C-alpha cells in the first residue's frame, strides 16, 4: 500500500514537473523516492494488513513489491544514459511510474476488481510506451499489435471474472477459494469456464505458448528501454498475480487445470528455446528467451506447495537482474553500431573487458550455470516441481535449458571473435547498474539461502 501511494505520488510529481519547471531535479527525485519506497517496503516486512478487503499486504506482497521496486530503481539507472527523447522525458517517467504502481496493485490484490485495474494500468502504460517512437515503423507496429492483442486478453480476463462472479457471487479471491473448497464436488460448469478464460488471459500476459505470438514482435519493435521494462517489471507483476490467483482461488480444483498448464509450460520451454536458436538479432533472442523463461516459471505455479512463492521470487529476481544487465549492454552496443544484431558484439571482449564480463555473467545466469543466481533459480523451481511429482516436465525443462546454452553462449563466443571494434562507452549510471546487477547475480549464486528462506 505504501509502495502504491509513493509510486502514484511520484508519478503525479513527474507529470507536473514540466509545468512547474523542475524537470532538472526530477530524475534525482525519482531515484530518491524509489530508494525510500524500497526502505519502507523492507521496514514493513513481517506485517500483515488487509486494506478495505481489496489489497493484502503480506510477505508475498512485500517480497514481490520489493523485486518490482528494485528492478524499477535499476531500470531508472539505465534510463539516464539512454533516453533519446528529451522533450517528453517527464511524461515517459510519469507513465513508467504509474505502470509500476499498477504492478504493485497486481502483486497485492485481494479482489478480482483490483486485479483487473492493476492489469489495465500496466497494460495501457505499456501500449503507450511501446509506441513512443512515433517515426519508427517498428515501434508503431509493436504498440498497435500489443494493444489489439492485449485488449483481447483483458477482455478474456473480464469475461472470466464475470463468470466466476456468476458462480460464486463474490470478487474476493479468498472467499472464492473458500467457496471452491466447500463446494468442491458441485462446482457448476460456469465456474470452470470462468477459470479457463482467466487462465487464457493471464497466459497471454505472461506470454506463455500458445498465447506468446505478440511477445517477439512487441519486444523487438519497442524501444529497447521499454523492452527491458516489459521483460522484467511487467513479467514480475504478471507472474505474481498468476501465482496468487491460482494458489488462493483454484488450488482446490488443481486436477482440473494442472494438465493444461503442464502442456503450456512444456511447450513454452521447448518452443521459446528452439526458436531463440534460430535468431540473429540479440533483442529478438532476448525476447524468445523471455518467452522460454515464462515456461520455467510456470513450474512454480504447478508446484502448488510452500516452495512455490519462494522459488518464483528467486527466479524472477535472478531473471530480472540478469536481463536488465543484458539489455543495458545491448543498449550501449546498439547506440554505437546502430543495430541490435549479434554480430555487433564482435570484438567486445578485447576493447571492453568489463562489458564482456557483464555479458558473460548475465548469460551464465540466464542459461542457469553455477555459480550464478540463474542456476539456483532453476534448481529451486525444479525441486519445487519435483516435490509435486512433475518429473517428466522437469526433464523437459532441463532439456530446454541445455538447448538455451547454445544461443546464450553464441553471444559470448562472438564477443571474443575479431578485434575491429571501436570502444563502447557507457555512462556512469549504466556502469553502476551493471556493477550492481553483476554483483547481485553472483552474490545470489553464492548464498541463495537468504532469499529462498523469505517465503515459506
Amino acid at each position, binding site marked *: 500500500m505504501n509502495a502504491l501511494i509513493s509510486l502514484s505520488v511520484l508519478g*503525479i510529481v513527474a*507529470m*507536473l514537473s*514540466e*509545468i512547474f519547471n523542475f524537470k532538472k531535479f526530477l530524475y534525482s527525485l525519482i531515484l530518491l523516492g524509489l530508494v525510500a519506497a524500497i526502505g519502507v517496503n523492507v521496514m514493513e516486512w513481517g506485517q500483515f494488513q488487509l486494506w478495505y478487503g481489496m489489497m493484502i499486504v503480506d510477505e508475498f506482497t512485500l517480497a514481490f513489491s520489493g523485486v518490482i521496486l528494485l528492478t524499477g530503481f535499476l531500470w531508472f539507472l539505465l534510463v539516464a544514459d539512454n533516453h533519446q527523447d528529451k522533450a517528453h522525458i517527464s511524461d515517459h517517467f510519469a507513465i513508467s511510474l504509474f505502470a509500476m504502481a499498477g504492478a504493485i496493485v497486481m502483486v497485492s490484490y485481494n479482489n478480482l476488481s483490483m486485479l483487473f485495474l492493476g492489469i489495465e494500468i500496466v497494460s495501457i502504460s505499456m501500449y503507450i510506451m511501446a509506441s513512443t517512437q512515433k517515426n519508427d515503423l517498428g515501434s508503431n507496429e509493436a504498440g498497435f499489435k500489443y494493444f489489439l492483442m492485449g485488449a483481447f486478453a483483458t477482455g478474456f480476463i473480464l469475461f472470466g471474472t464475470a463468470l466466476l462472479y456468476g458462480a460464486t457471487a463474490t470478487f474476493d479471491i479468498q472467499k472464492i477459494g473458500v467457496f471452491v473448497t466447500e463446494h468442491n464436488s458441485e462446482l457448476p460448469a460456469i465456474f470452470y469456464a470462468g477459470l479457463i478464460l482467466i487462465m487464457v488471459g493471464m497466459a497471454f500476459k505472461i506470454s506463455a505458448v500458445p498465447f506468446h505470438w505478440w511477445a517477439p514482435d512487441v519486444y523487438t519493435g519497442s524501444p529497447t528501454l521499454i523492452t527491458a521494462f516489459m521483460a522484467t517489471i511487467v513479467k514480475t507483476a504478471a507472474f505474481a498475480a498468476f501465482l496468487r490467483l491460482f494458489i488462493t482461488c483454484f488450488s482446490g480444483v488443481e486436477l482440473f487445470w494442472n494438465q493444461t498448464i503442464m502442456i503450456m509450460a512444456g511447450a513454452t520451454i521447448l518452443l521459446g528455446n528452439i526458436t531463440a536458436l534460430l535468431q540473429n538479432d540479440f533483442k529478438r533472442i532476448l525476447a524468445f528467451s523471455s518467452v522460454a523463461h515464462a515456461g520455467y516459471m510456470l513450474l512454480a505455479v504447478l508446484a502448488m506447495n510452500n516452495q512455490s512463492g519462494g522459488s518464483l521470487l528467486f527466479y524472477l529476481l535472478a531473471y530480472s537482474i540478469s536481463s536488465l544487465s543484458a539489455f543495458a549492454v545491448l543498449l550501449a552496443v546498439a547506440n554505437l553500431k546502430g543495430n541490435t544484431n549479434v554480430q555487433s558484439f564482435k570484438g567486445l571482449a578485447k576493447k571492453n573487458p568489463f562489458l564482456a564480463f557483464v555479458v558473460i555473467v548475465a548469460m551464465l545466469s540466464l542459461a542457469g550455470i553455477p555459480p550464478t543466481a540463474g542456476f539456483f533459480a532453476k534448481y529451486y523451481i525444479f525441486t519445487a516441481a519435483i516435490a509435486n511429482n512433475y518429473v517428466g516436465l522437469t526433464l523437459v525443462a532441463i532439456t530446454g535449458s541445455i538447448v538455451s546454452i547454445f544461443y546464450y553462449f553464441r553471444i559470448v563466443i562472438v564477443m571474443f571473435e575479431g578485434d575491429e571494434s571501436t570502444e563502447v562507452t557507457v555512462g556512469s549510471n549504466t556502469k553502476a547498474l551493471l556493477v550492481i546487477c553483476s554483483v547481485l547475480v553472483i552474490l545470489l549464486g553464492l548464498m541463495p539461502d537468504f532469499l529462498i528462506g523469505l517465503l515459506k
Partner: protein
Amino acid sequence: MSTPADYLPILLQFIAALGFVVLTIGATHLLGPKRHTNVKNETFECGIESVGNARVPFSIKYFLVAILFVLFDVEVIFMYPWAVNFKSLGVRGLIEMFMFMSLLLLGFFYIIKKGALKWE
C-alpha cells in the same frame, strides 16, 4: 423500490418517438412529388462543383479532444451514485470524492498546460 416494470412508460415513449420519426419521414416520402435531376442530386446543391468525396482522413486533433471527452465523461458518471448517497456517505464519501476529483483535476490542469486542447 424501482423495478424493470416501472420503465415501461419510457419504453412507450421511445416507441412513440420512433414512430413519429418513421411516420413523418415515410409520409413525406410517399406524399411529396419526386422530380430528380442531375443537379438536384448533387451533394451540395449550391453552384460549386464538389471535388472528391467526404472520406478524407482528418486531423488527429479531433480524436484527441474526443478521447479526452470520453475520459471526463466517464469521470462524471461516477458522480451520480455519489450524489444520491451524499448524506448517508457523510464525510468519508466527501473525502473519497475529493481525492478522486483532485487527481482528475490535476490531469485536467496537465492537459490545459500541455496545450492539448489548443487548436492551432
